[in-house]
C-alpha cells in the first residue's frame, strides 16, 4: 500500500518539576498511524490528548523521544525540518495569531516564494501567489499591502491555507483550523479541505475536537486519549459505530443540532488531569462505565475488529 506518511511507535515525554519532585508525562505514547496520498486523516480528541504534540513532532518543531517517521518509505531524521525537506506545511488554530500584526500579510507569501526559490521574477511570484489565493476564493489585489487586522477570522484562515499551498505541499497539517472560526463560516474552510484533496491530491492531517466536521470531511479517523490512540478506522465505522467506551462517550457528547435528541444520561468528568496521565493500565479506567479489574493494571493491546483498531480489554479474546 502507498503510504505518504507512516508514523511508528512515536513517543514524546516531558519532564516537569525540579530535581526533588520530578514527574514525567508521556504526552504521546507509542502512537502509530499512516496517511495515504490524497486522504484526509483526522486525529480527534480532547485538549491534552496529545494530538497537537503529535503534529509538532511530525513537522519537526519538536524532537521525539522515540519512534520513527517515514515519508514515502524514507526515514525522517531527528529534528529534520519537514517543511523544507518533505513538502509538509501547516496551518494553525488562531487565525489572528498566525500572522504578525505588525507585518503585512503578503510579505509572508513573498518570503515563502523567495526562501523556497519558487519564482525567477517578481511577476512570476505574484502570479504564483495569486493562483494559490484564487484556490481559497481570494485575489492578490484584495490582499496586497494589508495588515492582518484588516481581515476577518475566516478570511485570515483561508489566507493561511493559501500561504501553506504556495510551496505545493503534499501533506497539510491543520491543527484545530476551525475552532476559532465562527460556526457559520466553518464549512467554507472545511469544504476547502475537500476541494484540496479532490482537485490537488493534497493529503491533510486534520486535528480537531469537533467530531461533526471530522465526520463530514475525513476519510479515516483516530481517536486519541491521554497520549494513546484508542480507536482508529474509517470515519463511518468509528463514528457511526464507536466501539471503545471513550469514543462512545465522545460521540455522545457532541451536541446534536436537533432538540429532539437531547442528552438523557449524565457524564462523569475527570477532576485532575495529571492523575489520568500517570494512571497505570488503561488511562480511561477511572471514568469507564464498563471498567473491569484488568483495566486498572494492564495496558490493553491493540485489537483489530473489521479493520478498526480498538485499544480496550472489552474486546480481547473475541
Amino acid at each position: 500500500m502507498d503510504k505518504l506518511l507512516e508514523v511508528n511507535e512515536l513517543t514524546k515525554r516531558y519532564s516537569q518539576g525540579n530535581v526533588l519532585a520530578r514527574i514525567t508525562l508521556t504526552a504521546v505514547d507509542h502512537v502509530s498511524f499512516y496517511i495515504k496520498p490524497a486522504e484526509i486523516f483526522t486525529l480527534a480528541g480532547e485538549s491534552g490528548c496529545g494530538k497537537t504534540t503529535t503534529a509538532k513532532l511530525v513537522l519537526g518543531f519538536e524532537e521525539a523521544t522515540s519512534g520513527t517517521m517515514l515519508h514515502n518509505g524514507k526515514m525522517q531524521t531527528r529534528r529534520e525540518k519537514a517543511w523544507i525537506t518533505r513538502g509538509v506545511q501547516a496551518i494553525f488554530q488562531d487565525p489572528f495569531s498566525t500572522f504578525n500584526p505588525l507585518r503585512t500579510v503578503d510579505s509572508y507569501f513573498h518570503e515563502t516564494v523567495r526562501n523556497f526559490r519558487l519564482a525567477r521574477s517578481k511577476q512570476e511570484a505574484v502570479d504564483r501567489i495569486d493562483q494559490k489565493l484564487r484556490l481559497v476564493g481570494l485575489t492578490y489585489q484584495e490582499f496586497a499591502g494589508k495588515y492582518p487586522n484588516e481581515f476577518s477570522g475566516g478570511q485570515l484562515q483561508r489566507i493561511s491555507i493559501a500561504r501553506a499551498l504556495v510551496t505545493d505541499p503534499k501533506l497539510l497539517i491543520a491543527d484545530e483550523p476551525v475552532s476559532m472560526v465562527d460556526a457559520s463560516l466553518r464549512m467554507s474552510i472545511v469544504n476547502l479541505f475537500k476541494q484540496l484533496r479532490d482537485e490537488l491530491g493534497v493529503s491533510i492531517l486534520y486535528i480537531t475536537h469537533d467530531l461533526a466536521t471530522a465526520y463530514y470531511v475525513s476519510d479515516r479517523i483516530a481517536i486519541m486519549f491521554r497520549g494513546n490512540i484508542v480507536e482508529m478506522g474509517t470515519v463511518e465505522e468509528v463514528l457511526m459505530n464507536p466501539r471503545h467506551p471513550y469514543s462512545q462517550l465522545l460521540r455522545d457528547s457532541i451536541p446534536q443540532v436537533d432538540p429532539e435528541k437531547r442528552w438523557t444520561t449524565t457524564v462523569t468528568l475527570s477532576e485532575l488531569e495529571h492523575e489520568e496521565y500517570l494512571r497505570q493500565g488503561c488511562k480511561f479506567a477511572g471514568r469507564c462505565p464498563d471498567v473491569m479489574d484488568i483495566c486498572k493494571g494492564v495496558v490493553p493491546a491493540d485489537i483489530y475488529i473489521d479493520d478498526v483498531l480498538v485499544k480496550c480489554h472489552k474486546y480481547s479474546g473475541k
Partner: protein
Amino acid sequence: MIEEKTVILRTEHLKAFYLLEVHGTQKTVKAVNDVDIQIYENEIYGIAGESGCGKTTLLKTLFGEIVPPLRLIDGKIFYRIDDDEVDVSRMKSEAKRKLRMEYISYIPQGSMSVFNPVLKIKGTFADFIGSHVHGQSRAEIFELARERILELGLPKNVLDVYPHQLSGGMRQRVTIALAASLNPRIMIGDEPTTALDVVVQRGVIQMLKDIQKNLKNTIVLVTHDMGVHANIADRIGIMYAGKLIEEATTEKIFAQPLHPYTQFLINSLPKFGDKSMRDSVPGSPPSLADLPTGCPFHPRCPHVKDICRQEMPNFHHLDENHKVACWLVGEA
C-alpha cells in the same frame, strides 16, 4: 406546559451604542439596535448569532452594566422584582449593585481571573457569600459555602484546593456555582461552554440545566454554537447586526426556521450520518459601525428583494411564540 408565563426581564426599543473616537473622527458602533425582548420566569433563553452581532453587548445591557464607551441611547430595561416592574436603566448604581448576584448574576468565562489565586476556593466562596449575607461568623459562612457546593453537585474536595489546581472544566463549573450560590432569579451566561472540550461542555450544560430546574429561575445564555442551544434552550432569539431577527421555541427554530439567516445557521452545521455538501453563510457579517440600509442581512441574502434594501421589516407574528422580521414572510 400550559401555565401563565410571567415576564421577568423585558426591554423596550433598547438601543445601546459604542461611541468611539478613532483618529479624531466620531464612530458609532450600533451593537444593540432597537431590541425588544421578553424573557419569562423559569426558562432558559438562548441568544445566537455570529461574533460581532452584538450579543455580548446585549447581555451587558441586560445585566445593567453600561459603562463608557458603551452608552444607552434609547429604550428601557425592566426587571420584575416582587411583582413590580422596575426600570433598571434609571436605577442608581448603588441600587443596581445590590441586585447583582442576589437577583441577577453573571457567569463569566471560567478564566483564572475570576478567582483570587492565593485563596483556596472556599475562601473565594466565603468572601463572596460573606459580602452579601451579613451578621454571620466566618465559620458559618464556610459551612454555607460547603452546603451550596454539595447542592450544586460539585465534589467537596474542590473547596480545599487552589484555583490553579482545577482543570478547565472544573473551574468553569465552580464559576457557575459561584454565580448560583445566592439563588439569583436570573443568571446570565456569555459563552460559558465555548472554550471547553465536548465532554466537559456536556457536563457544564448538564449542570446549568440542573440549577435551572432546582431554582426555577431564568437563564439567559449567549453562544454561537447552535448545538448547545438545541440541547439547553427553551426559546431562542437569533441576533444579526445588533437586531433580533427571529425568535421562537427551540423546536420551532430547528424544525421550521423562517429567516434566511436562521436557515443558513442551521443548515451549515454538519450532522452525523449525513455527508451531503453543506455551505457556510455566504459573505461576512457587516461592520456594526457601517450598517447597510434596510434589512442588514440583504447583502448576503439569496432571496433579496427591492424592499429589503430600503426598509427594515417589522416583526411578523406567526403565533404566540414565533416571530420573524423578514420581508419574505407574512407581508407577501
